[in-house]
């Protein structure tokens, strides 16, 4: 069915020791600072399901938080195992691509 095609990642890897780099199939290459990504966790414990209110307290997240491993969920998202033990968040392609617009350091390579 003809749903509008949102970009999908081609490669998900490291930008440096902690931060995540995603290369999208539209040519964009985005660096996601680890802590920004952790704070954006969409899981039910971090965001109230009904209201969308953020329940995660920034000060409760270690400054040095970083992904330990990342794996694919179905064909539409990734799940991240964090250094603070958190791992319930599912980051969809949509959400990640949307986040890209809010990051200062994205660069476009075509």
């Amino acid at each position, binding site marked *: *069915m*003809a*749903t509008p095609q949102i970009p*999908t*990642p*081609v*490669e*998900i*890897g*490291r930008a440096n020791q902690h931060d*995540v780099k995603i290369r999208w199939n539209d040519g964009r290459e985005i660096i996601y600072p680890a802590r920004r990504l952790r704070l954006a966790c969409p899981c039910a414990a971090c965001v109230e399901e009904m209201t969308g209110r953020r329940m995660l307290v920034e000060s409760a997240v270690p400054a040095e938080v970083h*992904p330990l*491993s*990342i*794996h*694919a*969920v*179905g*064909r*539409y*998202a*990734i799940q991240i195992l964090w250094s603070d033990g958190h791992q319930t968040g*599912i980051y969809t*392609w949509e959400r990640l691509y949307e986040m890209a617009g809010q990051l200062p350091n994205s660069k476009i390579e075509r």
Partner: protein
Amino acid sequence: MPTEDQVLQALRQVIDPDLHRDIVTLGFVKDVAICEGAVKITLELTTPACPVKDRLKEEAEQAIRSIPGVDQVNVKMDAQVRPTLAQMGSMMIPGVRNVVPIGSGKGGVGKSTVSANIAVALAQTGARVGLMDADVYGPSIPTIMGITDAPKPGEKGIIPIEAYGVKVISMGFFLKPDQAVVWRGPMLTKMIDQFLGGVEWGEIDYLIVDLPPGTGDIHLSLCQRIPLSGAAIVSTPQDVALQVAQKAVIMFNQLKTPILGLIENMSYFVCPHCGQRENIFDTGGARRAAGRMNLPFLGEIPLATRLRETSDSGRPIVVSDPKSPAAVAFQQIARALAAQVSIRNAEETAAEPVKITF
């Protein structure tokens, strides 16, 4: 004496009509043996349920026979179902190559009947098939498959019950009759995990999953937990039902689960006395809806009292009355479904998967 090169060159003329590529490029040609004028090859298809198996065999034979110096041709047919690409990296259910959920927008459209008969029809072609009844609200697969035994625990998990060549696991095995189930999200997710990881499936080409009606937690859990090859959606011809089917289509789209096609059940009526076909409803509704949504149409199953009777008595119609119009419809749909899985997997192999290096 013909050379191997000549044989391969000739076979490049044979195109798989579903995959749109020649059988050499597709890697179907195995074991070319040439002895004087006699050529022997094996064609390894991506499914034993291939709808164009005979045609490919014939065309391959003809292609080889046209090579100068060939006087004897032997084409052996074999099949090796390839896994969904996404499934290869994931160790969620080792040994299971393709997971195919059967869904519908609403209840009572014949989802369980269709799941069971497709599973058995696939097994009849020689494929290794599993059937998972994920309908926690009204598991009906044990009845349809005539299973009364309880499954036993094995070394690494529960051992599925085998019926008509299909390995079956059902929520019904773990519920007492008439036990009302009120399931909540997390419990459902846990059950799905147990079904997927806690069962000794062994080697499975197609795991057919009978979903509960609608678009709820189970669907979400399943699509999030494992990479699915794609879903099939069952609908009745009525327009209302088709609109509901559309809901299922939208849900699978949102979960990025490919849709392998639409199936129309209770499509038309064949008079058991005179064999006359009668379109009680607006037959063809699902075919048109599939066209509109740009989805494959997998086939239509007639309304048949025998179908209900055989299901109620635990002898699926593809086993108990394999020549009946309904059984023939199931066999054809099973082959169309297997072809769609092959097409999907071939497309995926061609497309680059996301590479994760973290």
